[in-house]
């Protein structure tokens, strides 16, 4: 399944890109599984997603919890907690 992923803040810095289109395995069903899979995929992923409890997610512009399903998602954004205005 092809999915657009956007990264922000130090997640972006560690991933080295602001976003990418990723082909994810069918077995990856929710946000937590995606984060765990990204952490094992390569070195930059290992660095960015070593601490999953520090990661927040939004699917198509709406904040979602770790058990939110990915099916139907157009874009998923992964980032640390916001620091506010």
């Amino acid at each position: 399944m092809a999915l657009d992923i956007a990264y922000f803040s130090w997640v972006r810095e560690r991933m080295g890109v602001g976003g990418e289109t990723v082909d994810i395995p069918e077995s990856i069903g929710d946000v937590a599984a995606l984060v765990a899979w990204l952490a094992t995929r390569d070195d930059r992923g290992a660095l960015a997603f070593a601490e999953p409890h520090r990661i927040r997610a939004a699917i198509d512009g709406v904040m979602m919890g770790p058990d939110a399903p990915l099916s139907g998602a157009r874009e998923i954004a992964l980032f640390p907690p916001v620091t506010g205005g």
Partner: protein
Amino acid sequence: MIRVLIRSSAIDVPAELDLHDAGGHGASASFIGRVRGDDGLAELFLEHHPEMTATGLADLGHAAADRWKLSALTLIHRVGAMVPGETIVLVLASSPHRAEALAACEFLIDRLKTDVMLWKRETFADGRTRWVEPREGDHGRAERWEQPVGGG
């Protein structure tokens, strides 16, 4: 008039005041937040999620306009790289009545701190950089607004 925007260039406070002020309102409350040069800060970089920040600011503006009787509302947030002294955020709220202008202004600035999708990175004179962690105090101030309030 509700004017809500995000900009990556400098916020011209007097010009915005003029724009906001065209009507000549009874009472105008404002808040200007600027970059502080504490601890040798050289640059503040604000990263944002464009769609979510835009939606968050627009929702905030409408929430204030629903809650208080406002004749004008201006809410401008800077993003990108800026140096100490530059304006990060400008809130202008006008109403025929001063209590409503003051309450709306305070509501907006408190909620801005928690409701918008922004991340701050500080760069210091010695070259160190760090991403700012969220502050619990901000959530406390923003949550005050969840309770019903008298007046307004």
